[in-house]
């Protein structure tokens, strides 16, 4: 019924809306490109900060940008050897 009504009033999706939505999604991915240099710098700084609180396995550290359809996430896998008791 609702579908029939919306069709009656010409509320079909306009192609420009489709274009905008596709652009929005593709740009989420395009914009989430970290250059290798930046990624290295990020890794170094993370190690620096984390080392204040725990002993981490630097060689086992993995930092990556994971992309799904709608979003981009920074995913880090950081093996911890020992947590410090105080700062």
């Amino acid at each position, binding site marked *: 019924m609702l579908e029939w009504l919306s069709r009656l009033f010409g509320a079909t999706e306009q192609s*420009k809306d489709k*274009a905008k939505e596709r652009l929005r999604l593709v740009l989420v991915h395009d914009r989430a490109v970290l250059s290798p240099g930046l990624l290295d710098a990020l890794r170094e700084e993370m190690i620096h900060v984390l080392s204040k609180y725990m002993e981490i396995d630097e060689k086992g550290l993995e930092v990556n940008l994971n992309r799904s359809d709608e979003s981009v996430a920074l995913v880090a896998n950081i093996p911890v050897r020992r947590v410090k008791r105080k700062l």
Partner: protein
Amino acid sequence: MGKSIVVTSGKGGVGKTTAAANIGTGLAQIGRRVCLVDADIGLRNLDVVMGLENRIVYDLIDVVEGNCRIRSALIKDKRLENLFLLPAAQTREKDAVSPEQMQVLIEDLKKEFDYVLVDCPAGIEQGFKNAIAGADVAIIVTTPEVSAVRDADRIVGLLEASELYDPQLIINRIRPDMVRKGDMMTTEDIIDILAIKLLGIVPDDESIIVSTNRGEPSVLDKKSLSGQAFRNIVRRLEGASVPFLPIEERSVVKRLLRMFNNVSGRS
């Protein structure tokens, strides 16, 4: 000291060269000293769009390599005496010039001209890097298509990485009839996505093809709608606040009204 502006887009065929030719000619028309620089080494076209292809003796590479002085490579426009073109080399590769050399060249030109307009090649490789090397500001040209807007966004990022901030956008080939039907992204849609400043909207206009056929930028044609759009862009570049051309109107009455308004001194 003048100002250097690079006209770029990422995607090819969106109207970079036409925009550069029209903006340059428009600025010269209001009395500014303008030098157009074709940075598209190997695929030069600004010369034909300007109708100056028969006058080329030396080119940009000759200047950079020291085969001639800048003065002898500059081609004076047929119509405007304060407008010049530095043509690209047609038979050389893009790496025949370096960003550092371009920077020196543009700096030299800025001493002589109010505006140095650089027409950038399509793509994001060496030619792009050369073209943006000496630029103070950037104009990005796009069309209301997914591919062109996507590439424009990429260019925004690359310009930022080269410390060229706050580029301004020209949306070319807008078709009011399609926008009205919802089959073309609106100016607002595109600005919303790219989040950069709008410099101008240029309607899709057959007169552009006619003027390119003739080698006469449409900005010189008082009756051309795209010419009007470029004249507005020129005034905005000069700091004036000019309302954007309404893309909705199409009716004969509205057109006549606008023509009447223009004649009665509003433009």
